[in-house]
């Protein structure tokens, strides 16, 4: 049998039918739903009098538009009436269509890509979709996971399948050992910087190499999460003992003999020796330094000790114009060093970096230190209610509060600013999220993406800082 990639196996394991136009009907094992991209899908079903194909394959949670404080009153406590209506609509739709929901006041509520793995709803070998482009996060579990639009959400609700075209295979290999204070976030940002925001378009990316094998599941999720920032809908990591140990004992994961039987199937979720990739990229993980974005696209990124590119060095006029526009928006100069750029806010959170490991890393940096006077808001927003509880059990909340951070309830928060956590015009923010687009965190806001430890260092110094020299 021909050597196959992990992606090939996942694809072939889910092929229901080949269609005359060259696409395939792919079975979807799990659909995650949230309040923002699902209402129109449910309306569509209602209009056509169509039932949900398999209610137990879906799970819903409000996360995007929810406030991160004053959560005691549940949905009724959402001050923004438009957001309240949307969250209420999710509740109503789930009730009408019998879809399980982790409600706003449920301890399991959280960012959809944090709670899936946490609850064992994300299992190796699955196909997973969600109306959210960061769904590739779940690829860390050797799944085929991707973001879809609302029409496709409706399609999956009604048929448990999606019509898809097979992607090409790309392997990104990170070999070597990470230097101290260099994190998975830095690996993926460096990759995006090299291949560009469209570099992965048309590909499913498998992350491999010794540096990936050495990472925890949390770290692997951070990397897979940002695949879409390189243009790839799906990113994944092969199954191994780390995966197995994470999944074991999770609420929705199989137990006992069934778990043993499952691991027998899961062990095949690796690319075969000699499998062919259409494209490969290699990185020496040991040579990478902490990365910081300087522009308005995730590909506009460089190492902390580097400077913003000089425009005259760029031959391509389109690229030069893009850089100029980005620097105007960011109020930065070509050639300016990244270190020392002063900040107004710090945001630690999002589906990229709001898991327990991220919070522990932040605590290690800020313990015994204070948020700098210049920073007028420093938010820490855990990825889920369970992450929040875990952090509190470990006393991390005390460290954050003592340092002057605000310790909030779980949600997407300032990653996209759908609730009241956002940047004002001209404010500059160190953020552990995934997008630095114009206006992403608030109209006129300026985002610098970085790792949790780099954001922590920025919080205590008031400026972009090399955490290694703190």
């Amino acid at each position, binding site marked *: 049998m021909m050597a196959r990639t992990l992606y090939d196996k996942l694809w072939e394991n889910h092929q*229901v*039918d080949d269609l005359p*136009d*060259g*696409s395939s*009907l792919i*079975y979807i094992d799990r659909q995650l739903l949230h309040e923002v*991209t699902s209402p*129109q899908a449910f*309306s*569509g079903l209602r209009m056509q009098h*169509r039932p949900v*194909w*398999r209610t*137990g394959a879906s799970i819903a949670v409000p996360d*995007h*538009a929810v406030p991160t404080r004053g959560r005691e009153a549940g949905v009724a406590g959402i001050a*923004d009436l*438009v*957001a309240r209506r*949307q969250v209420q609509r999710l509740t109503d739709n789930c009730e009408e269509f019998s879809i399980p929901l982790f409600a706003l006041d449920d301890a399991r509520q959280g960012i959809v890509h944090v709670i899936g793995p946490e609850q064992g709803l994300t*299992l190796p*070998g699955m196909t997973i979709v969600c*109306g959210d*482009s960061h769904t590739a996060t779940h690829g860390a579990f050797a799944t085929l996971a991707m*973001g*879809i*639009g*609302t*029409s*496709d959400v409706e*399609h999956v609700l*009604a*048929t*448990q*399948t999606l*019509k898809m*075209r097979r992607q090409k295979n790309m392997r990104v290999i990170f070999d070597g050992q990470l230097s101290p204070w260099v994190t998975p976030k830095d690996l993926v940002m460096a990759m995006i910087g090299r291949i560009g*925001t*469209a570099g992965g*378009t048309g590909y499913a990316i498998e992350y491999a190499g010794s540096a990936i094998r050495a990472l925890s599941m949390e770290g692997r999720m951070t990397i897979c999460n940002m695949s879409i*920032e390189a*243009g790839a*809908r799906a990113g994944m990591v092969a199954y191994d003992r780390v995966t197995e140990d994470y999944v074991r004992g999770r609420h929705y994961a199989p137990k006992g003999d*069934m*778990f043993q039987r*499952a691991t027998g*199937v899961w062990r095949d979720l690796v690319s075969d020796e000699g499998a062919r990739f259409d494209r490969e990229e290699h990185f020496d993980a040991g040579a990478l330094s902490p990365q910081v974005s300087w522009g308005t*696209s995730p590909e506009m990124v460089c190492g902390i000790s580097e400077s913003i590119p000089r425009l005259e060095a760029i031959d391509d006029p*389109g690229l030069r114009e*893009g850089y100029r526009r980005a620097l105007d928006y960011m109020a930065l100069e070509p050639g300016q060093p990244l270190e020392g750029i002063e900040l107004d806010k710090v945001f630690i959170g999002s589906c990229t970096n709001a898991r327990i490991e991220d919070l522990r890393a932040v605590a290690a940096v800020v313990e015994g230190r204070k948020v700098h006077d210049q920073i007028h808001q420093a938010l820490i927003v855990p990825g889920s209610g369970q992450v929040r509880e875990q952090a509190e059990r470990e006393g991390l909340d005390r460290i954050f509060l003592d340092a002057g951070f605000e310790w909030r309830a779980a949600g997407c928060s300032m990653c*996209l*600013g*759908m609730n009241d956590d956002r940047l004002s015009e001209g404010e500059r923010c160190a953020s552990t999220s995934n*997008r630095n*687009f*114009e*206006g*992403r965190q608030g*109209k006129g806001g300026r985002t610098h993406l970085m790792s949790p430890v780099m954001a922590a260092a920025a919080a205590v110094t008031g400026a972009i800082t090399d955490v290694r020299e703190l």
Partner: protein
Amino acid sequence: MQPFSTHTGVVIPFDRRNVDTDAILPKQYLKMLEKTGFGDFLFDDERYLDPGDVETPISGRRPNPAFILNQPPYDKGSILLARDNFGCGSSREHAVWGLVGFGIRVVIAPSFGEIFYNNCINNGLLPVILKLAAVEELFQCCREHPGFELTVDLENQTLSHPARGEWPFHMEDGHRKALLEGLDEIGLTLERAEAIRAFEASRREREPWLFTE
């Protein structure tokens, strides 16, 4: 879904790369519950000088005169011409609903964000992938003849102007058929319900832990 066959309209030269869906339809409008009503908020952050949200009356807002969608004849344009990786980023279909609501029928670019591209197909908005050189020529036409109009023929996969020429493009058959016929994709898939049920049964047998309900 509205079928697409041919369309003639004013080309809006939107000379930018990596236009993301956050820019196309900003976050504050994602709380809306319908597929309609997004046209006024297309490129909202740039299109208006003052900030807005779902509850701000549009009549009271100040359009940004420097923004192309506020300038005639582009305010009535229906073909958006852009650079690489148009529609990258967030999966929000609201971006497509915004374009459609504004009256855009066709977006031309050398490449698109993949989720956005699919969302276009699902909403009868035609995304045309065109070679870089042809895109360059079209931008040139727009510069030389402001208000330049194109005719888009999906059946024959051409863009044309009676005096300035013809530019062929290619679209995968499945996508082209879906747009030309305005098909109900879910209805078509449900015709294969038996195959789905059979697959599901074998999957349940092989990996029963995936079926916990």
